[in-house]
């Protein structure tokens, strides 16, 4: 992760690069408001690209059928003229209010060490952040960060360790292949002898098993043993039900991602069943200058539809304009007829 000490000054920070966050860039951009977009995922699209990139969506107005990935790609193209800056693989950790109700100002920090100064914040965090699924191993939290990892930050952390990797997808197989040379021992555990991972990774893994360089076990890890965060062993329960303790000082479970509300809950916003209540005129939260659009907000009659998120972004942008350009009168214009808007879109 990059460490940036100088704060980034911007009009707006948008939390979440799903469809609602991306289209907010468009509506804000038409009003000359510059945005930085932060997302925990490595790419734009949110649930659209993470959960159903290839699945068709039928309820986007004007697009009878579009896949999650196509919609994301189109949105990215649509907002390109406004030059948003993306910060992927980063989670917004803190949101601090520095201004007043009339002149809001915020300081935002991410888990990658970046700091932003923004006049307005748009929370478009959907169902929260996508985070690794944690297997039901008792006390697994007490080993996280020391022995249990859901991603590899530094290969050196695995040198000369007894590594156990659980899963059958690309993450599990890629790390099996990458960590085998540095690990003291490596055991791959999966529930079946079928792998979703790329075929060449699977054959490379099977080759290592044949050569006796790693072992592959059918089953699951049910217990972690050790003290003070340092694992020494893991209980492997085979598909035959037989349990066995195997040496394990590094455990990497790969069970995909799940949505958790995450740090949003700690930003001092009023929450209702993990959703952020907003008004339906400006889609502003209980805190002036912080807006919430898309699946994360709540108001009477709310429908968690992508099209609702688009509408909400358009209205939030109007109020954001009043905070950012308090002296300017906002003139309502159409992209079809306004040469001014067309200039911003780079089409005139």
């Amino acid at each position, binding site marked *: 992760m990059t460490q940036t000490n100088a704060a980034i000054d911007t009009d707006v920070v948008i939390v979440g690069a799903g469809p609602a966050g991306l289209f907010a860039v468009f509506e804000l951009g038409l009003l000359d408001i510059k945005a930085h977009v932060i997302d925990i995922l490595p790419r734009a699209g949110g*649930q659209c690209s993470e*959960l*159903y990139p290839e*699945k068709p*969506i039928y*309820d986007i107005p004007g697009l009878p059928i579009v896949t999650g990935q196509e919609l994301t790609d189109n949105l990215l193209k649509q907002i390109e003229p406004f030059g948003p800056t993306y910060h992927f693989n980063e989670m917004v950790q803190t949101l601090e209010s520095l201004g007043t109700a009339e002149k809001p100002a915020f300081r935002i920090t991410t888990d990658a060490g970046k700091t932003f100064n923004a006049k307005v914040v748009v929370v478009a965090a959907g*169902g929260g952040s996508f985070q690794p*699924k944690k*297997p*039901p191993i008792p006390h697994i939290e007490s080993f996280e960060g020391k022995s249990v990892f859901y991603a590899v930050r530094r290969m050196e952390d695995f040198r000369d360790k007894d590594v156990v990797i659980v*899963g*059958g*997808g690309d993450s599990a197989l890629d790390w099996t292949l990458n960590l085998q040379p540095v690990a003291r021992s490596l055991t791959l555990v*999966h*529930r*079946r002898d*079928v792998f*979703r991972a790329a075929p060449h990774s699977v054959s490379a893994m099977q080759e290592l098993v044949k050569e006796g360089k790693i072992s592959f076990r059918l089953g*699951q890890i049910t217990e972690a043993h050790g003290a003070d965060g340092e694992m020494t062993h893991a209980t492997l329960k085979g598909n035959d039900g037989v349990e066995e303790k195997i040496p394990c000082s590094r455990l990497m479970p790969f*069970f*995909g991602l*799940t*949505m958790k509300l995450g740090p949003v809950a700690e930003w001092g916003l009023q929450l209702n069943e993990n959703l952020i209540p907003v008004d339906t005129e400006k889609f502003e939260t209980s805190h002036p200058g912080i807006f919430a659009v898309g*699946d994360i907000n709540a108001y009477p009659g709310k*429908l*968690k*539809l*992508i099209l609702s998120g688009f509408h909400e972004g358009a209205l939030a942008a109007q109020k954001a304009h009043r905070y950012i350009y308090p002296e300017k009168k906002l003139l309502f214009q159409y992209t079809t007829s306004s040469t001014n808007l067309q200039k911003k879109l780079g089409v005139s």
Partner: protein
Amino acid sequence: MVKMSYDNMAVCYGAEPGGGAPTKVKITFVDSHGQARSVEGEVGSTVMETARRNDIPEIAAECGGACACATCHVYVDEKWTEKAGKASQMEEDMLDFAFDVKPNSRLCCQITIRPELDGLTVTTPAQQG
């Protein structure tokens, strides 16, 4: 988007399909503590949608039925495994993301309710996500 559509679906299923076959069946969900809840399921909808419409606990269904998240994992009662059918390859792949997968594991968004599933019993695991 897909996530909140369960209520709307209830409206869609209101129409009576012709032919006289039953349009409603009984589905029983047993939670990880052993508590059973029997509810009515509409033929043509899925077991997951039935669970969500009836506020059945321990079914997260994060992706809303796209077979993309493995958080509607259930164990099909042994008596029903044959009638409920086997998981497709896509569903099997997705079951890799579920915990404590057993031979009778299914993702219940992929079980479409048919009249012969009247009485279907499934058990939910303690942890989905």
